[in-house]
């Protein structure tokens, strides 16, 4: 028995949808990584490029919306196809939000001084790397329909929360040393918070992948780190 749809164009439409989502995911990864680099290196030249790439991500979102509407109207997908379609809708929303948060982080680079101390940025850098890894892993779990990997990402968000807490504390420490640091410290706090929120969207994607693969929602609440509990 073949695994392909009897109607070839249906098969193609589902494949186009998956392809669009994978492309959108990889754009979101690059943008997140570029925005992190820009913050850590206080690279003001890259801000415009990052803002521009957000437009690309948003375009993908609209394209995916249209693809999904067409699929629903034309094919009335069922079972795995229905889950695939609905999951794409949800994942594309989360990716778009991650894109917005990266754009927001890029904008925060502008007011930063060029001589930020390393100890201030170290924790933020570690947080950024972890969030990057999480995004990469969750997209892998989507491509390979890997339930266990998605669940791992979901559980690992606790570490994102913990690192967010640590990064916040180092900014607050720095701020308390000299009130003159208030302005750009606020930007760094927002940038940290944005990463934590990106982590939450990644967790949503992980939940969606789990549902996509098994047709059931994850049971129980995910482990939460310090920043959430407070």
């Amino acid at each position, binding site marked *: *028995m073949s695994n*392909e*749809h*009897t109607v070839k164009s249906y098969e193609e439409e589902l494949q186009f949808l998956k392809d669009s989502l994978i492309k959108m995911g990889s754009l979101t990864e690059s943008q997140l990584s570029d925005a992190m680099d820009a913050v850590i290196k206080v690279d003001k030249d890259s801000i415009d490029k990052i803002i521009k790439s957000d437009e690309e991500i948003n375009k993908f979102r609209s394209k995916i919306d249209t693809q999904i509407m067409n699929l629903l109207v034309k094919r009335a997908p069922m*079972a*795995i196809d229905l889950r695939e379609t609905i999951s794409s809708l949800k994942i594309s929303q989360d990716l778009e939000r991650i894109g917005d948060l990266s754009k927001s982080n890029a904008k925060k680079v502008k007011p930063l001084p060029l001589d930020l101390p390393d100890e201030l940025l170290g924790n933020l850098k570690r947080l950024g790397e972890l969030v990057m890894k999480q995004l990469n892993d969750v997209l892998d779990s989507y491509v390979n329909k890997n339930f266990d990997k998605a669940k791992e990402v979901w559980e690992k968000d606790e570490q994102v929360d913990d690192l967010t807490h640590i990064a916040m504390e180092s900014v607050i420490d720095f701020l308390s040393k000299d009130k003159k640091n208030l302005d750009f410290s606020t930007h760094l706090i927002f940038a940290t918070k944005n990463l934590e929120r990106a982590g939450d969207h990644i967790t949503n994607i992980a939940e969606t992948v789990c549902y996509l693969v098994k047709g*059931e929602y994850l049971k129980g609440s995910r482990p939460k780190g310090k920043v959430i509990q407070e």
Partner: protein
Amino acid sequence: MTNIKIKSKNLNVYYGDKQALFDVNLDLNEKEVTALIGPSGCGKSTFIRCINRMNDVIDICKVTGNIEMDGMNINDKDLDVVSLRERVGMVFQKPNPFPKSIYDNISYGPKIHGKGETKSELDQIVENSLKKSALWEEVKDRLDEPGTSLSGGQQQRLCIARAISVNPEVILMDEPCSALDPIATAKIEELIDELKKTYTIVIVTHSMAQAVRVSQKTGFFHLGKLIEVGKTEKIFKNPNNKMTQDYITGRFG
């Protein structure tokens, strides 16, 4: 608490040498709609025809195994088939009203089953049946006109009215909407929703969306075997069996 109205156990049907159903075990819940899906020739219609012994009319047909309604053996050779069919009504793919007036189409069944002895009793049955089948308002002023003068959708509702006129317990519907336009289909589906409060309904359909809309339970047949049966929502969102998934997603059949 859901009661089981019809229970089949190891039901086998043969047409001559050809086996059409293989050990089908399927329970139909009372006052629920059960949808039967599967590719043409998979045994769905054969199964529902076992419920009102319609297979009796085919000489070469042989049925083994058990099928019960409220614990009564439907296959019992001493069973009065006419009274069985009074309890189990049927609606077919193509509307097939009698070549008689709308009124007579409905009153015929009650008359032969000895229901409605006076004219006013029959009038009442006709009116109630047409109201229950959501046709009354459209035909109340033309009850003397031939049933065949109605539109396809109206004719199908007339057939449903005819089926319920003898106050059955079960209604079998074999692709009742396949010859109807979307609006007529919608009316029948709305009607099914209403009828399930009173009757146990089994519907054979090739429309997955219709099965989702009207039924609480769905059974998937393939090559005479019941492959999977379960809550409709589960079957269409996340079936257990790969063959079910391949069929409902349009990968074969």
